[in-house]
């Protein structure tokens, strides 16, 4: 127990006295959060007169063609037509979750879903209105983010569009009717609509421990090996597990401090609306810390020179961070990049943290958010331990 505590204490001393470590562990994540929010918080509110609209047509009644007419109307108002106000993207019904995320993360402004029974519903409404009976109008589902100007404006325009459709039917039938109504679905309801600060905060809470894993585990371990410090420890009666746990726990302790510091900064300074007290988020964060420490261990034992560790860390760090959807939502990626994203533990961690911090739903299933990073943990830790055992023979 004594060596474990000493390793824990002195590794912390060593890092807290190092200005470079302080920069990367404390200052860098805060700077990153501030810079990202200052630079990109206006996403989707740039006053564009063209709105990105997604339409999903679930209705497929061969006798009535009202749903296709609605799509045609939106098409006529879309690019490449002159004076187009929309940029239309049509998607199939199985892509609804993906489409919702695109709107939520500002890649698109609005999603219109024409429900399965839309055509029959309109036909029924028309018939019943002729007979003078009461009827329930057909409903268009519209998904939008109210606090984003572009999304809100687009939603208003769709409201106007349904008004025009109802006027058309009123003229045809010779009486005032309302056969189509809009059912608005507000996105980002978990904590209200997410702002960019809300969006990026969970990502920063993923980057910070990941950076610590790469910068405070890998180079340190490499130095301890190359400088023969590990060999020196091995020549004493000290149990190697004392070093392993003392060192690892000191890293995890730093990561926990990062969580607390960053979350408080994000909430009180950047006004992020994230559920910092979510126990699930904290548990998942601890799990992520273990994964990133294992990655650091693997890099640290794979190469023994500081320069090589630094180069390898950069090679790992940059693509993993940029393809994790931390800074921007990831949409419309080519298949080979998508494959990389699906292998990226940071992508799953970001998704899970967004859900646990009650920012937005995870686009990947929660079991995958645990399974893939868990796989990374097993592989990297297995590699590190095997390599170390081989070296000792």
């Amino acid at each position, binding site marked *: 127990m004594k060596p474990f505590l000493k390793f824990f204490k002195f590794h912390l*001393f060593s890092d807290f006295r190092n200005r470079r470590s302080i920069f990367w562990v404390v200052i860098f994540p805060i700077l990153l959060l501030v810079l990202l929010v200052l630079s990109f918080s206006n996403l989707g509110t740039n006053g564009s007169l063209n709105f990105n609209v997604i339409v999903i047509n679930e209705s497929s009644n061969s006798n009535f063609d009202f749903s296709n007419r609605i799509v045609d109307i939106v098409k006529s108002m879309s690019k490449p037509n002159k004076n187009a106000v929309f940029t239309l993207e049509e998607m199939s019904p199985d892509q609804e979750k993906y489409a919702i995320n695109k709107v939520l993360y500002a890649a698109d402004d609005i999603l219109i879903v024409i429900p399965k029974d839309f055509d029959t519903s309109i036909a029924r409404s028309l018939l019943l209105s002729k007979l003078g009976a009461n009827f329930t109008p057909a409903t268009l589902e519209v998904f939008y983010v109210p606090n984003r100007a572009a999304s809100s404006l687009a939603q208003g325009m769709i409201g106007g569009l349904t008004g025009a459709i109802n006027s058309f039917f009123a003229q045809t039938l010779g009486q005032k009717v309302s056969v189509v109504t809009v059912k608005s679905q507000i996105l980002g309801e978990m904590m209200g609509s997410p702002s960019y600060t809300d969006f990026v905060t969970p990502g920063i809470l993923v980057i910070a421990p990941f950076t610590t894993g790469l910068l405070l585990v890998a180079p340190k371990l490499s130095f301890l090996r190359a*400088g023969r410090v590990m060999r*020196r420890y091995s*020549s*004493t*009666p000290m149990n190697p597990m004392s070093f392993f746990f003392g060192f690892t726990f000191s890293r995890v302790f730093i990561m926990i401090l990062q969580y607390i510091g960053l979350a408080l900064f994000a909430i009180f300074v950047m006004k992020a609306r994230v559920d910092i007290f979510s126990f699930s988020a904290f548990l998942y964060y601890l799990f992520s810390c273990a994964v990133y420490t294992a990655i650091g261990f693997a890099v640290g034992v794979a190469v023994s020179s500081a320069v090589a560790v630094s180069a390898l860390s950069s090679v790992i760090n940059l693509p993993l961070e940029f393809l994790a959807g931390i800074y921007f939502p990831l949409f419309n990626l080519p298949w080979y990049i998508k494959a990389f994203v699906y292998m990226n533990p940071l992508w799953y961690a970001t998704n899970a943290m967004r859900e646990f911090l009650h920012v937005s739903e995870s686009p990947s299933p929660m079991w995958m958010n645990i399974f893939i990073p868990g796989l990374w943990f097993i592989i990297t830790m297995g590699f590190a331990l095997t390599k170390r055992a081989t070296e000792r023979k």
Partner: protein
Amino acid sequence: MEKVVEVKGLTKKYGRFEALKGIDINLYKGEIFGFLGPNGAGKTTTVEILEGLRKPGEGEIVFFGEKIHGSIPAHVKEKIGVVLQETRFLDHLKVKEILELFSSFFKNSKTPEEIIKMVHLDEKAESYVDNLSGGQRQRVAIATALINDPEIIFLDEPTVGLDPQSRESVWGLIEALKKNGKTVFLTTHYMEEAQRLCDRISIIDNGKIIVSDTSQNLVKNYGGKSEIDFKCDRIPSQTIIDDLKSFINLVDDHFRIETDDITKTLEELVEWSKRYNLSITNISLVEPTLEDVFLTLTGRGLRD
């Protein structure tokens, strides 16, 4: 003398390569034992096995009368101190903190303050180890080896890369260890270091110990002849030269005598010069060293 370590027929293979081909070593209490050899001879493998850093192959290792099976057990490590070649320490830690860390590894240890005093680092106790000079850092390394008050200290090339002043300071520390009754196992390829410090020396080459003895005996038995080089104020005639009992060579403008007994030859030379009224100038003596011993035994130099 009390035997503290006994190694019999120790072997070690790395794949097909035989690093150690059955070596025997005895370490006696209170002696400084020198282990010499060129790079790749098996020196580091031997010392790392004895330090518990590598698993031994075949053979027998006995520490303090206890036969060791496999790796060196923790209770034996409690009694040994290790100084690796060019040891580094965790950055941004103070000398006192490094020693506090190492003292936690042992059941019984001295206080960091005691050890700091012993290695004369009192003024640097609160200094960060990364700000120390090479010699001071090596003294910290020796301090970490002494924190558990060990009975044997393994020093692997402890003065490599140090300036002469720092080297002298480390030698002083090693001599102090001997005075305190510690046993020292020293590997080096500095001949003057081995000759000055070691009571006994073993020379290893190609995984085999080729000779073991005191440095004086090694030089005497395998070092070859000493040389006396000198000049005279005039070139003596062949008859005068022939009158000197020792065989004399004229090399350029100076003379060289090869001898087994340097004192006797010098006395003879002085008498000879007086007898023929010759004035001897620029006299120099070249005595054989362990380098010559190694050359004689292996046909190549220690640093080759």
